[in-house]
């Protein structure tokens, strides 16, 4: 067991934190959010400069070949600084899929990703799929050497700004994934803003033609790719939430130590102290589960892996809710304004819960796995002679 970060990870963390604390001020955040695209080109270029856009991309393909814990470090810092740029969508999810399953031609895109020139978006969820990865209605039919895609995608992170979309669709042999350039005929993207300032898109595919080599991986093999991508995204969101909670807790702590009511700092009131102790507990539980989620990404047993990820996403959603709501409450009126960073962290934490499955969704997933993994042998022992009348004990 080892809970320390490597020297390299510490370097990434320090460099990123320094850059963000100097550059990514609340004012800058607000400006980027107002601009609507959810991505500041200058920031993005700096991310490339720092090397983090190529984090998961092997060196031969233009990246730095980092691992999941490197990603954890980065995501924590992005969460701490309220970064809304679609780093997760491009650098972890999108690049992850191409590294794993892209053809050599497709993988050529990755150098551009690492260099900050190309953005990627996974277009999988649909209007009524509510996080159920298999509930996909979009269809791809063979036409000549290529495919024709028809359907709708919803809530695609960075869907309007991405250079390439990875679109999932049903084919005869199951779910398949296609690499589609962002601007493509018969494909319309409606950009939508979100409460944290990032950008998502609704995408309509009205008979989009793609060539045969647009297929990512094997035909019918997309569900495994999407599941793996979702797992990476969950771990990333968990780390981001931990970073955001750290920052929010620190903000709140500073506030209650200075804000005076009735002549004393409100941090001196025991009722608030005890609630802040609970906030810290929940933030630390969240950190623990974030570590666990990232550690389990590499576990081959799918059941064990998914249970850990669902557990983490559930618990972190719960922690984020408690920490967020309490932080706002302790800030009083200031907490519900746009002025302080407080409300922005609160909103981001709330929206993280609604990304890649909320608390309910993941508790359900976890519980389903719990029942199948429960040793039925214990049952027979306890179920024996269930309800005969007995004399008193």
């Amino acid at each position: 067991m080892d809970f320390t970060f490597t020297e390299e990870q510490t370097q990434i963390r320090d460099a990123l934190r320094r850059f963000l604390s100097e550059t990514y001020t609340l004012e800058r955040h607000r400006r980027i959010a107002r601009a609507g695209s959810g991505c500041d080109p200058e920031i993005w270029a700096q991310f490339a400069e720092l090397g983090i856009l190529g984090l998961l991309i092997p060196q031969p393909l233009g990246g730095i070949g980092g691992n999941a814990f490197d990603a954890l470090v980065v995501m924590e810092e992005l969460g701490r600084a309220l970064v809304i740029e679609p780093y997760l969508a491009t650098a972890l999810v999108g690049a992850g899929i191409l590294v794993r399953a892209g053809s050599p031609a497709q993988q050529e895109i990755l150098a551009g990703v690492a260099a900050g020139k190309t953005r990627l978006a996974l277009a999988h969820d649909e209007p009524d799929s509510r996080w159920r990865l298999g509930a996909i209605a979009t269809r791809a039919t063979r036409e000549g050497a290529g495919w024709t895609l028809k359907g709708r995608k919803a809530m695609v992170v960075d869907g309007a700004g991405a250079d390439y979309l990875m679109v999932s669709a049903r084919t005869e042999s199951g779910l398949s994934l296609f690499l589609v350039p962002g601007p493509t005929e018969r494909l319309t993207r409606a950009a939508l803003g979100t409460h944290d300032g990032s950008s998502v898109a609704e995408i309509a595919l009205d008979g989009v033609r793609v060539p045969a080599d647009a297929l990512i991986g094997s035909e019918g093999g997309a569900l495994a790719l999407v599941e793996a991508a979702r797992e990476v995204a969950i771990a990333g969101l968990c780390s981001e939430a931990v970073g955001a909670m750290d920052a929010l807790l620190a903000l709140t702590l500073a506030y209650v130590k200075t804000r005076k009511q009735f002549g004393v700092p409100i941090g001196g009131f025991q009722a608030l102290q005890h609630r802040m102790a609970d906030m810290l507990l929940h933030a630390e539980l969240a950190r623990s589960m974030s570590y666990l989620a990232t550690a389990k990404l590499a576990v081959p047993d799918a059941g064990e892996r998914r249970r850990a990820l669902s557990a983490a996403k559930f618990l972190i959603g719960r922690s984020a809710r408690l920490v967020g709501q309490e932080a706002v409450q302790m800030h009083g009126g200031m907490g519900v304004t746009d002025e302080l960073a407080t409300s922005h962290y609160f909103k981001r934490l709330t929206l993280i819960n609604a990304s890649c499955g909320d608390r309910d969704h993941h508790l359900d997933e976890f519980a389903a796995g719990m029942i199948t993994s429960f040793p039925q042998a214990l049952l027979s022992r306890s179920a024996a002679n269930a309800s005969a009348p007995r004399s008193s004990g």
Partner: protein
Amino acid sequence: MNLNFSETEERFRGEVRAFVAAKLPAALRDKVLGHKRLEREDFLTWVRILNTRGWVAPGWPRKFGGQELDPARQLILEEECALAGAPPVLPFGPRMVAPVIMAFGNAAQQEYFLPRILNGEHWWCQGYSEPGSGSDLASLKTRAERRGESYIVSGQKTWTTLAQYADWIFCLVRTSQEGRPQEGISFLLIDMKSPGVTVRPIVMLDGEHEINEVWLDNVEVPVANRVGKENEGWTYAKFLLGHERVSNAALGVSKRALRELKAIAAATPAGSGRPLLEVPRFRDRIAEVEIDLMALEVMVLRVIAMDRERHTPGPEASLLKLHGSQIQQTISELAMEALGPYAPLHQPLALSADWAGAPAGPPLGPGVTGRYFNFRKTSIYAGSNEIQRNIIARHMLGL
């Protein structure tokens, strides 16, 4: 012991229902039920309609233009209007400043101000809170210096709801530095058009403009606009706060919100062909908040009965505020959770009644998440829930 409304009360409910059905403009109703942004004129339209029936401030004494309606009927009126989709009658005029003017103002003040509250000519806002004084109201710093027949007022008020629409503001100001902080406070009525009054919007976390800072820079206020005696404003301020009894329970609007929550959950597919409303986990939570709302309603009726019995308000209103605010927050949170993956969307244009576009995501979705964010205020404003717990501990438990 009898928990039913009487026959005459039920008859009154019927009258209200019929009146609202006949008089509430459909466009205004749809705006309210569709959670569109309400403009100044929307509120005033409804005030003028209500005033034709004497229902803007039906609890007022007859001599001031009221109907001396008892609290049970006021509750019925408020609830029926809310359920039917009428805009709220804002409390600042009829339920906040008016009782103070009636109790402590002079005849001239009563004759001038009260009718203008009823007919909507004066929109009032509240100048209590200051940046440094939230829960600790008595620490306020806005100063009023006597100069002849005027006060010269300087300072800053904040969290002033809809001050951008207001004609008048009632202010607590410091007229003396002597004694305890509570002792040197006076209660002034200030014309918002006075030179030196500046309103600056505060953007809320949902991106909307609902509250403001009000800056007072050497504003000249006639001494005639002081209510009651100099330096005794704290008494009036407490009287005013004690007057907000049951409306903080937000019974009517929470009933409407619950109805809407069920509609959202019934329209949300949740897999296996079931709507979310039938998923046990989610259904349970709606059921629990509905039960909480039932209990709140009985509590409200009990407090009304208690007030009637002893002719003086007790500390129980704190229980109503505490429970009522939590219900509002729970319903708004469940509605957001029902949206599921669509919860993040922010579509401010869709909140404008003029917008011709169709919103993305579920039809009832726009505004839902913003409302969850915005409703965090319900446990902060009107005496934070921490303050309510302090009051309960001190005045009901003797701690």
